[in-house]
């Protein structure tokens, strides 16, 4: 993927993230802490979170198609970066204890591994179908030759 395409993809992701974070903050805030009042500065929170998420993706950008090993390494780097950024951002927040921080750090790789595993299972099923199609294709082409 060229950097231009990658940049466009990140821009779209940024807009989607800002929207999703704003909705999540609004809904969760209304459910769990409806009385809290915020200043105008609070409007920047979704933008900052989304920007952080997008910037982290720049670390692992590759112009060439990455090997499976490199994808795994880049995913691990992303986990560490996300955990680090979230910990730094929550440093001065009142009420965030060490337990919260541990849960935060552990939950990122747990969710990521679960999503990766699920997509791997789906892709394995797709690969099986493609292999079946490939065998049919090869026998068809061999017959034509």
């Amino acid at each position, binding site marked *: *993927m060229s950097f231009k395409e990658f940049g466009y993809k990140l821009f779209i992701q940024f807009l989607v993230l800002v929207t999703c974070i704003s909705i999540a903050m609004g809904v969760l805030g209304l459910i769990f802490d409806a009385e809290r009042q915020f200043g105008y500065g609070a409007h920047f929170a979704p933008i900052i979170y989304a920007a952080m998420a997008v910037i982290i993706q720049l670390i692992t950008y590759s112009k*060439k*198609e990455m*090997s*499976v090993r490199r*994808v*795994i390494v880049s995913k691990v780097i992303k986990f560490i970066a996300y955990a680090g950024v979230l910990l730094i951002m929550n440093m001065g927040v009142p009420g965030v204890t060490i337990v919260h921080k541990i849960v935060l750090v552990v939950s990122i790789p747990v969710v990521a591994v679960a999503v*990766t595993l699920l*997509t*791997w299972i789906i*892709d*394995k099923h*797709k*690969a099986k179908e*493609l*292999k079946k*199609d*490939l065998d*049919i*294709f*090869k026998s*068809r*082409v*061999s017959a*034509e*030759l």
Partner: protein
Amino acid sequence: MKVVIQKIDKSREEQVVIQCYRITEEIEDIKQFIHTRGSVLEVFDESKRVYIVVSDIYYIEAVDERVFVYLEEAVYEIKSKLYEFEEKYMGIQFFRCSKQNIINLLKVINIKPAMNGRFLAELSNGEKVIISRKYVPDFRKKLKGETR
């Protein structure tokens, strides 16, 4: 359709002449097949010029403005661009599987998942080539014979 084969002297160039009333899809297929199957490709082993049979190619890779063809064991450079090879030989058996690679589907023995919606094509010489997520729908269509 009548098929005529004439043996010629080695001093003359081999050729296939198709005489037809009009150029149909079948004629285009035959033309493409001849291009792919019968043709030889001029490649370079450093500065030495070599000729290889196109159907012997396992995959083609573009690396920093240079294009390499991979055979069972040997690797050669070609002077044309990847898209030029694609335009000329993208008949029955070749498929553009990523921005950098074209694979010979008849050399693929297995397909495995490769994370992020990509797949790994295992070739009969043991090499592995990534099928990019962007090209997976076309790959499926190609295998099903929905595209040429």
